[in-house]
């Protein structure tokens, strides 16, 4: 983990309010697993005060560069969208555990399910899985066609199905509808996206092998402040917990309460 002023190499809007940012710095050398995240200080002053957790979408270790995708929505992410090439941004990372790609064997079929701004970490994951010889099927859900992104990127790595809630692009409905309709079968499932999506997937496939990546409001991002805890599923007295930032953000299927 490093705290580094990374250099912005690119920062552009690739879909409505969705930005792709390329950052360069030594920190890239420490990235190990897809699904790790950065904790980004979007200001040089105290507004906004807290860092923003953003997943690493892909890395290029040769160039010491990594790419993140984010939705410019609230105060911090909107500020992030104003950074220009060659400015620096204060980044803490890489943080979190990432997806357990070590468990995947060559030849396995892995289903990746991403919802909205949960899609980015799956791209790095898909790349690594392909390199390992796994077959990757990706199902991406967005709210409407204006916010669809990276469909083409994923297509280079395997079959891709895109759905939108309003039907304005790809299949009409939720990711689970697409999986049903296409009768997709798989050996393992990795998912990242809004909690209702994750919950629908867990309800549908209670016993699948796989992991999901969670979001929670964070303070420190490194396990110190206990802002980001969640309950575990088999915990009769409700005292057990996981920290999303340092025990997660990726948890084994069925481990934490959604």
């Amino acid at each position, binding site marked *: *983990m490093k*705290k580094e002023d990374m250099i912005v190499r690119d920062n552009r809007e690739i879909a409505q309010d969705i930005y792709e940012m390329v950052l360069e710095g030594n920190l890239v050398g420490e990235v190990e697993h897809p699904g790790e995240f950065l904790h980004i*200080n979007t200001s040089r002053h*105290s*507004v*906004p*005060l*807290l*860092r923003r957790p953003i997943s690493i979408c892909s890395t290029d270790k040769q160039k010491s560069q990594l790419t993140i995708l984010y939705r410019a929505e609230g*105060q911090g992410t909107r500020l992030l969208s104003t950074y220009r090439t060659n400015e620096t941004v204060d980044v*803490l990372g890489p943080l979190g555990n990432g997806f357990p790609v070590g468990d995947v064997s060559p030849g396995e079929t892995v289903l990746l399910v991403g919802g909205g701004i949960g899609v980015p970490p799956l791209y790095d994951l898909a790349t690594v899985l392909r390199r390992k010889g796994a077959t990757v099927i990706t199902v991406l859900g967005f709210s409407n066609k204006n916010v669809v992104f990276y469909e083409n990127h994923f297509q280079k790595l395997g079959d891709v199905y895109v759905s939108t809630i309003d039907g304005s692009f790809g299949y009409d409905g939720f990711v689970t509808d697409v999986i049903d309709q296409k009768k997709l079968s798989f050996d393992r499932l990795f998912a990242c996206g809004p909690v209702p999506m994750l919950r629908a997937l867990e309800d549908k496939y209670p016993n699948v092998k796989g992991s999901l990546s969670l979001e*929670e*409001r*964070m*303070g*420190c*991002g*490194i*396990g*110190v*402040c*206990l*802002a*980001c*805890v*969640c*309950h575990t599923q088999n915990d009769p007295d*409700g*005292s057990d*917990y996981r920290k999303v930032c*340092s025990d997660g953000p990726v948890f084994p299927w069925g481990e934490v309460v959604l």
Partner: protein
Amino acid sequence: MSRVNIDLPGLSMKNPIMPASGCFGFGEEIGKLYDLNELGAIALKATTPQPRYGNETPRVAETASGMLNAIGLQNPGLEKVITEQLSRFDTIETPLLANIAGTTMEDYEKVAEALSKTGKIGALELNISCPNVKEGGIAFGTDPQLAAELTKRVKAVSNIPVYVKLSPNVTDITVIAKAVERAGADGLSLINTLSGMKIDRNTSKPLLANSVGGLSGPAIKPIAIRMIHEVRHQTELPIIGMGGVSTLDDILDFIIAGADAVAVGTANFTNPFVCLELSQALEQSLERQQINHLYDIRPKEVHLR
């Protein structure tokens, strides 16, 4: 004698900077980032007799130059703190300030007695001011008589100095300060967080699961400075000052206002290296200005001790 070392009851500090309670856990994570021996002292996360899960999430919310937290005193409980957390510091010379919370006076006594007996703690800090737990000692923090009685009882069972951490959510903080001073407190910590709320307009409800949370960060610094200044002129006790510290200038302001040592809370979340960086920057700055000792920057009136 360096330019920055200071000696407080139970805490012989190589510099005046310590992480504030609850903003450093039990040192596990940040201990991996730098050598904890560089710190003046370390205030540990509040310990209660039993393990606590704390509040549901969301537990934090952002405000202008501040944050609200409602962690709810999550901690592994007295037993595990002793068996699993304190050994981490066996090879570290930095004195520990153990923060104690509870629901009843007996809770405080129990934790204080057990922790002081470990021989690993420099001093105790009574958190009588956590605004995030209904039973979390908040009445102790706002009622001078209860605060005094609690102090007396904890003193009776502890063989190490006892600091009382004061709540800013009171009409007159000097009344509480003087009450615990008379009751035998060895020092004061101030300020804890101010009680605040943020609305989540998507739901038209308070954003924090606990509704109310504690406001910390730069937003509260002027309130902290005012209260430290007031208390400094009313008691002789050493003061550990805190509230919105994140820069070297902040440290100096707190010392000038009357703090004897300075704790850094929220800033650790934005920059986990902040306490280390501030310790180094402070010593360098005094050296550059050829100030022999930190306390020399204080105006005369503040030299009460």
